[in-house]
């Protein structure tokens, strides 16, 4: 029963890709210009060449490293400040407007300001950190609000140690929110990293490669690099989902009945 559902899902996904490729092909034929819209086959040929170049892995590793660095900083700082804001009302009141400001700042403003402040390679890290930080922070605050005081009360009656209350009631209550934060901020962070790379032009970067390809009117290469970025983004998301599944066994079991 389950396997047939999975098989069907895969079938639909394949169908969706075939339709997309067909549409792409037809439109590229109608447009008739490789500079405006390269055909799927020329894009994949150039993707194939791309993967075989010497610098390819260096480029994607450099971009991934920036994504991870930005994410890691926002995760650590966001969790810490989120904890303070979640447990302390005064801190929350003072801190909240700052979050609103960061959230409302256009990505491009952040990138342009970072260009003035930082070295090329660090601009994407800073930009993705600043974009992810409010997401992590807000989610941790929400998670703390989600802690059921009735469970804490129960634990106090049964004289559970403070460490037990934190580790076995607080943390599991916050964890789903933290995982949601990871998944969202990773997705957004990745796109911001590439956007920032386009403008800051570090030596090795997907964004730099995109921009160079565009300047030389290698539009099939622009498409090929875009596909690389999409695939990597998708891979991250899958990875996060996998961790999520492991972490929330009790949730997955819950859904087993459906």
């Amino acid at each position, binding site marked *: 029963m389950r396997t047939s559902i999975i098989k069907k899902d895969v079938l639909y996904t394949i169908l969706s890709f075939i339709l997309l490729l067909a549409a792409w092909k037809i439109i590229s034929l109608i447009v008739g210009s490789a500079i405006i819209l390269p055909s799927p086959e020329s894009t994949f040929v150039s993707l194939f060449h791309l993967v075989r170049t010497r610098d390819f892995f260096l480029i994607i590793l450099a971009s991934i490293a920036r994504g991870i660095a930005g994410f890691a900083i926002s995760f650590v700082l966001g969790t810490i400040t989120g904890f303070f804001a979640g447990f302390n009302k005064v801190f929350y009141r003072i801190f909240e407007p700052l979050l609103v400001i960061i959230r409302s700042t256009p990505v491009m403003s952040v990138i342009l300001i970072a260009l003035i402040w930082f070295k090329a390679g660090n601009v994407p890290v800073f930009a993705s950190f600043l974009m992810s930080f409010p997401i992590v922070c807000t989610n941790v605050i929400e998670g703390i609000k989600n802690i059921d005081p009735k469970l804490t009360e129960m634990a106090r*009656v049964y004289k559970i140690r403070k460490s037990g209350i934190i580790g076995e009631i607080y943390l599991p209550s916050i964890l789903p929110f933290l995982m949601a934060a990871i998944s969202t901020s990773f997705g957004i962070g990745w796109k911001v990293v590439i956007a920032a790379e386009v403008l800051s032009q570090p030596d090795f970067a997907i964004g730099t490669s995109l921009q160079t390809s565009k300047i030389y009117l290698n539009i099939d290469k622009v498409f090929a690099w875009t596909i690389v970025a999409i695939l990597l983004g998708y891979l991250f998301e899958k990875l996060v989902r996998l961790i999520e599944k492991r972490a929330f066994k*009790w949730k997955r079991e819950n859904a087993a009945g459906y």
Partner: protein
Amino acid sequence: MLLDIRNLKKSYRNITVFDNFNLSIRENMITCILGPSGIGKTTLLNLLSGISKPDSGDLTDFTNKTFSYIFQETRLLKWKTVFENVNFVLKDIYGEKKSREIAEKYIDIVGLSKFAGYYPSQISGGMQQRVSIARAFAYPSDILLMDEPFKSLDMKLKKNLIAAFIKLWQSDKRTVISVTHEAEEAAYIGNDVVILTDAIPASVKDRFTFELVQEQRIADYQFVRQIKRTLIESF
């Protein structure tokens, strides 16, 4: 031995729930406190257990006691299995091996051995309540507090659960204070039944002592009917 509540006073904003409230509880007996909803029964249990603090009054007989508490809601940790939920309150007290043994023993008594590895979301509400009862009995407390533990269960399940409760209590006669608005529940399990007034601030309106063994009551419903009638007349 008696545990005394003396001159208890508690109010929330301008509502006085208890004012000069006095009650003596017999140790190692089951005391049922019977009263209508909203009379402050839960508040009383929270005051005894230290969850909330009284405005004034003497609760010294309770201050150095340990408590188990069967709440109105099950208050299970949904990310822990049945076994882990019971073990959660034991492992700080006993070593890992002993707490496992005790948890397994009590899960078995409430008839959930087969479900020890299940998460709360995977079992029914009645089963969850049984886990919370097992947790309360497994924990080595001086006093067991119960807040309408058998409510919102169907008749058959309720009787099974009451029978399981009595079995547990017979093996380890600790002081039980149970609050409820159902005369029948009190008739089944109470050694002492305390009836509260209808309006706040509450006081004790009437008090009964039944020396009938609970197991007999389960076996012969006539006893329960008699007790229930007596209670309802006064209630």
